[in-house]
C-alpha cells in the first residue's frame, strides 16, 4: 500500500476527511517552501500537494499563475522541487506528497529519470494536468514501476465512457474538479457537487478528493461531507501573494490561520458524520 493509500484508509477508519493544501514550490521564494510545508502539516494537513512551476499554466487561474511567476523569477525547476521534497523528508516521513503540474518539464527530464528521482526523494503521487489517461505512451507505466500513485482529475464534464480508463490507470485517489473553470474560480455549487459525487462513487475503486473553488470554512464544511479529501489551493496561495515580501514568519502566520479555519470546518463536518 502506498503512503497515500495508507493515509486515506487510516483516516477513513477514523471517520475523518483529509485536508490537502496546495502550494506552488518556490513561492514566494525557494527557501520558504520546506518551512511552509512543515507549517501546513503542523496546522492539520494530511497530505500536501506541491505545484511544480511551469511557464504556461493553462488550467490555472490568476492566483496560481502569479505564484508560478514568482517561483520562476527564481528559476525554480523540477530538480529544485525534488530537492525541496528531499529536504522535507528529513523531518517528516509520514505526510504524503503529491506533485501537481504540467507535462513538459517532466518530458524534458525523461519519464523514467523523473519517476525514479521523484520516488527516491519521497514523492508519493503525481498529478499531471495535461496528461489524460489516453496519452500514456509509457508515462504512467514509468510512474507505476516505482510505485508512484497516478492521480487523475475528473470534472463535471467527464463522460461515463472515460471513467473506466481513469479508474484503471489511476491510483491513490481521484481528484474531482468541483467546477467548470480554472483553479481559483468561485462558482462552487454544493448541490451539483453532491449529485456528481454520487454519480462517480460507485464507478471508482478509489477515495474521492474534491478541489477547485474551495475558499473558506463553509465550502470546506460542505465538501468534507461529500468527499474523502478536501483540496485547497488558491485560498492559501493568495495569502502567500499578500505576504510575498514579508518575513517567512508572517507568511506562516497567515497560512496557519487559514489552515485552522479549514481544519476546524472539516472536523465539524466529520463530527456530524459520527453522530449520524
Amino acid at each position, binding site marked *: 500500500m502506498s503512503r497515500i493509500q495508507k493515509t486515506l484508509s487510516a483516516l477513513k477508519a477514523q471517520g475523518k476527511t483529509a485536508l490537502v493544501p496546495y502550494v506552488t514550490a518556490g513561492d514566494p521564494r525557494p527557501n520558504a517552501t520546506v518551512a511552509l510545508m512543515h507549517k501546513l502539516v503542523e496546522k492539520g494537513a494530511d497530505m500536501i500537494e506541491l505545484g511544480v*512551476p511551469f511557464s*504556461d499554466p493553462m488550467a490555472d487561474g490568476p492566483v496560481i499563475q502569479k505564484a508560478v511567476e514568482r517561483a520562476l523569477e527564481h528559476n525554480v525547476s523540477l530538480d529544485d522541487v525534488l530537492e525541496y521534497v528531499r529536504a522535507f523528508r528529513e523531518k517528516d516521513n509520514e505526510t504524503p506528497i503529491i506533485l501537481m503540474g504540467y507535462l*513538459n518539464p517532466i518530458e524534458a*527530464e525523461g519519464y523514467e529519470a523523473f519517476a525514479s528521482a521523484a520516488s527516491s526523494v519521497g514523492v508519493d503521487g503525481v498529478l499531471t494536468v495535461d496528461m489524460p489517461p489516453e496519452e500514456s505512451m509509457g508515462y504512467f507505466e514509468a510512474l507505476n514501476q516505482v510505485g508512484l500513485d497516478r492521480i487523475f482529475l475528473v470534472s463535471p464534464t467527464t463522460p461515463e465512457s472515460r471513467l473506466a480508463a481513469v479508474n484503471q490507470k489511476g491510483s491513490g485517489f481521484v481528484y474531482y*474538479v468541483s467546477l467548470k473553470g480554472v483553479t481559483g474560480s468561485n462558482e462552487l455549487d454544493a448541490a451539483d457537487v453532491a449529485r456528481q459525487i454520487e454519480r462517480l462513487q460507485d464507478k471508482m475503486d478509489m477515495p474521492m478528493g474534491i478541489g477547485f473553488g474551495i475558499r473558506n470554512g463553509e465550502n470546506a464544511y460542505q465538501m468534507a461531507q461529500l468527499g474523502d479529501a478536501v483540496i485547497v489551493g488558491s485560498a492559501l496561495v493568495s495569502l502567500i501573494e499578500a505576504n510575498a515580501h514579508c518575513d517567512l514568519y508572517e507568511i506562516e502566520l497567515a497560512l496557519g490561520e487559514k489552515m485552522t479555519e479549514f481544519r476546524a470546518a472539516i472536523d465539524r463536518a466529520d463530527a456530524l458524520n459520527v453522530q449520524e
Partner: protein
Amino acid sequence: MTVDFAKFPDEHGHFGPYGGIFAPETLMAALEQLNQEYQSLKNDPAFLNELNDDLRDYVGRPTPLYYAKRWSESLGGAKIYLKREDLNHTGAHKVNNTIGQALLAKRLGKTRIIAETGAGQHGVASATVAARLGLECVVYMGADDVVRQAPNVARMKMLGATVVAVESGTRTLKDALNEAMRDWVTNVDNTFYIIGTAAGPHPYPAMVRDFQAIIGREAREQILEKEGKLPDALVACVGGGSNAIGLFHEFLPDEGVAIYGVEAAGHGIETGEHAAPLCAGKPGVLHGNRTYLMQDEHGQIVGTHSISAGLDYPGVGPEHAWLKDIGRANYVAINDEEALQGFRDLTKYEGIIPALESSHAIAYATKLAPTMSADQIIIVNLSGRGDKDMNTIAQIEGFEF
C-alpha cells in the same frame, strides 16, 4: 517515399510521435464531441456545399495565382507565382478556417465564440464570422500585440468583438492561447473555441489543415492550367503553420515538389531571440499537442521574438514537426531584417504590400529563386496583406502614420 499522407493523423490525432490530445480533463469531452461532429461533417455533402458557397460568395475564392514577373526577373532565376491569400475577405488566409469552424459552432448550437490572435488576422476573421452569424465573440490577444497590431484591434472592436489584452507571461500569442483555453475550460457549455492555426489538441491540427487545404488544391489546379506542370518548390511562412500546411498538403505526395516552411529567425537564430522551434527547438508538449518547442533545459517555454506578431510563437503545428522528421519538408528561417527587405521588394516590384508574416516567405524566395533555372517554378503563399503592419513599418522607416 511511400507514406500515405491522407492517413495522418491517426484516430487519436497522432502524426508519428507528434500531435495527440494533452488537454485538461474539463475539455476532454468537448474535444471528443468536436471530433465526432467534425468527422461526421467533413464528408457530408450538405456541409461541404454550404462551406464552398461561403468561400466563393463571402470570402471571394478562388484566390488568384499570380505570376510576379517583374519581381522574378529582378531576381534572375525561377518564375515565382504568388498564391494571393491576401485577397481574401479580411485580408489573410485565416478566414478559410474561421468560416469552417463557425459552421461547426452553429451545428453544435454554441452561442459564443472565442479566439486567440497574434497578428490580429485570426481575431478579425473570427469577429467577422461571429458578426455574420450573430454570435458573441471574445478575442484574446497578447498585450504587446494589441499595441503593434492596433489597426486590427480597431477592426475587431468595430465588428462587435470584445478584445481582451493578455498581460500574463510574455504578453504575446502563446499567452493569448493560454487565456483562451482558460476561458474555454470555464465556459465550455456554450462556447466554441476557434483555434487560428494548425496546432492545439486533436482534432484542431487536422481540422484547421483541412479547412486551409483549399489553398493547395486551388494552386495545384491553377499552376497545371497556366504552366502545364507542377511547381518545383513551395514556400510559405510558418507561425503555428496553418497557411503553410494549407498550401503544402495537396502536394505532399508529389515527390518532385520541394517544400520550404519559413520560420522567424527574429534577431538571428544565434542570438536565441527568434521564433523558430523547428530550426532550433526540440520536441515537448504545449497547448494540447506534442511538437517542436522553444524551451530551456528544464522544459520551461522560453520567450520568442519576431518582428511579425503572427510568427511570434514558441510552438508549431504537429504535422510540420512530423514532416520535418520524415524529411518531406525543409524548414528554414528568415530574420527580421531579411523579412523587411522582402516586404520592400514585393511592394516595389509588384505593387503588393505583404503582411510581415508573409514577407518571411517572400524573403526566402529571393534566396531560393536565383539558385534555380528560368524554366523552374516556385509558388509562394502570400498569406496576408500588410495594412495591419503600417504602424511597425512607419516606425522603422521613419514616416508618420
